């Protein structure tokens, strides 16, 4: 990891003047993920454990789209934001896993 990468937003990177297409695609992708989630629950009758897993996967995918494309975390020069967002999610995840482990079982 060079210092260059660690510069947060400081690094200049001229990405091409991008049109809305990429974001519309990401948006449609999000909508599809959401629809799958809602439709599965509305239809019912699917195995509960499978549904839970499916819903969580849909949520995580959608969050990755938001963070990566719309909040630009996939772009260059975002090493520091990625580290700190990952840290926040990690601590949050620890708390959630602990809560599930002790309070449910």
């Amino acid at each position, binding site marked *: 990891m060079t210092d260059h990468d660690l510069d947060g937003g400081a690094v200049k990177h001229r990405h091409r003047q991008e049109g809305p297409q990429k974001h519309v695609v990401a948006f449609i992708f999000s909508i599809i993920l959401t629809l799958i989630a809602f439709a599965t629950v509305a239809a019912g009758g699917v195995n509960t454990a499978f549904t839970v897993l499916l819903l969580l996967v849909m949520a995580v995918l959608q969050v990755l789209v938001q963070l990566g494309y719309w909040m630009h975390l996939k772009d260059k020069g975002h090493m520091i934001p990625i580290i700190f967002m990952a840290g926040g999610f990690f601590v949050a995840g*620890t*708390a959630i896993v602990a809560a599930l482990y002790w309070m449910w079982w």
Partner: protein
Amino acid sequence: MAHAHTVKRHKGLMDWLTTVDHKKIAILYLIAGGFFFGIGGIEALLIRVQLAKPMNDFVTAQQFNELITMHGTTMIFLGVMPVIFALMNAVIPLQIGARDVAFPFLNSLGFWTFLFGGLLLNLSWILGGAPDAGWTSYTPLSSTTYSLTHGVDFYTIGLQIAGLGTLIGGINFLATIITMRAPGMSFMRMPMFTWTTFVTSTMILFAFPAITVGLVLLTFDRILGANFFDVAQGGNPVLWQHIFWIFGHPEVYILILPAFGVISEVVSTFSRKRLFGYSSMVFATILIAFLGFMVWAHHMFTTGMGPVANALFSIATMLIAVPTGIKIFNWLFTMWGGQIRFTTANLFASGFIPTFVMGGVTGVMLASAPADYQYHDTYFVVAHFHYVIVGGLVLGLFAGLHYWWPKMFGRVLNEKLGKVEFWTFIIGFHMTFFVQHFLGLIGMQRRVFTYLPNQGFDTMNLVSTIGAFLMGVGVIIFLVNVVLSFRQPKGVAGDVWEDGRTLEWAIASPPPEYNFKQTPLVRGIDAFWKEKMAGNKEMTPAEPVGPIHMPSPTILPFMMSVGLFIAGLGFMFTNDDFGNSVLNFLFGKYIITGLGLAITFGCMLLRSLFDDHGWHIDPDELNDKEVKAS
């Protein structure tokens, strides 16, 4: 457009209320932290007086509960945290060769919210009773069923406001260290104190939001009648313990890591040697921070988590001894073969090492879950955490204060008096807490206001009380030393210890408002030492002399904190009957709360609407000041 000379410069009190200069904010933190440290110290002495002899009736059981709660809460949140922030503010921008922090406005806001939160918490003494459920405020003890006064409300809301200030400070230092380093100062060339500040701030960022939520839940339970911790309605008291310790365990590393940084600087300076094993120190710091988030449940071994969880948390806790051990050995190897000078700062640092090791050893003992069932809630635990917090952190803070005092104030503290202070304090400390290990092992419980005679507790408790007063004398000697130092004229040499290694020693003491006339070029670790060894008297500048942009002073952070203070006070008394219809209306209908929030958000709006263009110091003025400063 704001020019250099049109900006309004405040004088006197207004200057301090509106300052955004990190060096002045450091002094504010030091004064406020010292004030709360004094209050916490007096509370400690009252506790020790009560426990000096069996069946004492110096204070009542209720007063004793209030004293222990406020002693713990005050010392941790309002005493040592701000003194840590004082050192960070005074030193970090200088160590990284910056003219200021990344967010001067937020820096000031962080201080004022901390101060008003602390004042709110301490207001409880005169407004119907202090919090009495211990600094951990475990439910259901802290619920409205068992804690009838507003004490715990003062705890939740006061800490909420003060915690906000700490979080803001943490974000500010992270951004400062990431973006404001001088040219050439890569991450692996940062001084150790900067590294520990960086890691501490990261921990603050991830730990404080958890307590924010915990305090909100407890506030809602107590004031809005929510059921988070109310078993009858399905709530779960153990949830509070998890949330509290998910914050609380990182918090103790938040406290100790800056002390590690201070010790690293002091030991290396006064051994005239580069810090031994710099990269392993960095690695150990990060590892301690990571493990610090993974061990919170070792505070809860006796809540019945089951053998698997207890075993995992046991092992994780014991693992922390490894990076800590790396640090201890690195300090020893730094001193090994060095030209050691035992200045007061170095005495405190040298006293820190064995004392902290003792606290660490009892920590590993406590980490063993089956043994912990025996130690739990006894004076053994009290002895352990005082060894790491007082014997570790407070000794580290004294080392740091003696070391950086000349840089902060341009005057040195008296060395002879400092040595007397060190010996009084450390002898008093070991007298107070060493015996408490044994008190705990033979069965004396913590948080109980008195004890029966002839259980073998009497003598050791008396020794402990005498030791506590000796520590008090040590602190008073320090205060005398401070007063005496202000009777000297200002203006010691920039490199006052003559062996300064890092950038803060390359500029005047105290530094001018803009810190560095020209941003220095960093050519290696221990940048200033490197230049001195190359035969240079000063740092090589990385830029030509030019006008320097400065942020304008502002009263808004102060006003925002006042708003939060009013809102907190208003919210707390929502359900009270004052026997007065006007007051009942004002509090019961959230008018006061709304007014306070309106002040806070109104000030935020003003800050957004009116841009601060700051002002410039012209180059000719710089030369002027440089002459005066040197």
